């Protein structure tokens, strides 16, 4: 049986050895070996980050099966050109600082998977709106950054878009909207109360009047400023 005193002495010896000046190695040897080990570690770290960006990795958790099934029915999975957007294309930023931040935050997903927060259909549906709101909020804050990795107004040819799409995209530019303001649920199903919840997220003050504005939109009536003001006054 190990004596605690022996263990302490062992750790002390390792600590002293770690900080002992090198006498066997030249400065050049130490620098070159440190450089090579640095490359190996950095390469390994980057490889691991990229490995965690693959679709196989994302859907390896049981609770992601629902997500996967829904995504496979969308244009981002199956389309005429064969170009796909996998999970990480929409959920992981490309820029280093945002990517590392997203990866650190994603540790919570592992925790929730382990405690089974969404491991049944009932639990998943109960939390669907909360999960959606987290993504909507994030995308509104960063101007739908991940959408814009592939889609950009600057490179859209409005003349070959459907009339409704081109007019809505023009409206998006004019009103400073961001992609997620109109394109919710492009990869996953929307919860039943999504519209109300999204409007609360977008404009908490006037959320109670949103019903009348939405009816205007359904009636294909442009919601001009006067209409909006009128609706709010009612």
């Amino acid at each position, binding site marked *: 049986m190990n004596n605690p005193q022996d263990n302490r002495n062992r750790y002390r010896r390792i600590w002293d050895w770690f900080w002992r000046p090198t006498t066997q190695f030249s400065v050049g040897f130490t620098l070159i070996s440190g450089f090579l080990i640095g490359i190996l570690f950095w390469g390994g770290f980057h490889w691991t980050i990229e490995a965690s960006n693959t679709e196989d990795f994302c859907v390896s958790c049981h609770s992601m099966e629902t997500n996967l099934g829904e995504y496979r029915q969308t244009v981002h999975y199956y389309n005429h050109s064969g170009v796909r957007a996998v999970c990480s294309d929409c959920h992981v930023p490309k820029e*280093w600082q945002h990517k590392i*931040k997203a990866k650190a935050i994603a540790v919570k997903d592992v925790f929730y998977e382990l405690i089974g927060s969404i491991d049944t259909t009932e639990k998943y549906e109960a939390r669907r709106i909360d999960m959606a709101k987290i993504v909507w909020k994030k995308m509104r804050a960063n101007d739908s950054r991940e959408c814009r990795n592939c889609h950009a107004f600057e490179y859209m040819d409005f003349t070959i878009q459907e009339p409704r799409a081109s007019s809505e995209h023009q409206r998006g530019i004019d009103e400073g909207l961001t992609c997620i303001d109109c394109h919710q649920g492009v990869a996953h199903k929307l919860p039943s109360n999504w519209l109300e919840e999204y409007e609360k997220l977008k404009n908490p003050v006037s959320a109670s009047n949103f019903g009348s504005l939405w009816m205007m939109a359904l009636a294909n009536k442009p919601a001009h400023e006067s209409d909006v003001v009128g609706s709010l006054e009612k």
Partner: protein
Amino acid sequence: MLEILGTFAGNALSLPGILGLGFGMMTRQLYLAGVIGGLVGILESLIFSGFHLAEIGTLELTLSVLVGIVAGMIGCMIRRKGATV
């Protein structure tokens, strides 16, 4: 909370953490190491915002400076402990 932890981790693995530690190892003056680390934090915020001051978030800037200062000081302590010069 997650936002803060994520930003903290992002900075630790980015310029303030790595360069701050490296610069900190170049001096035995603890305060100087902290100042250099903090400057690296400011520099990182500027670089990643494309030098647009309006795009720098208060939280991001604060945390990157904080991480830079801590990393610089740790680097300085490594220098003090592990070098004779």
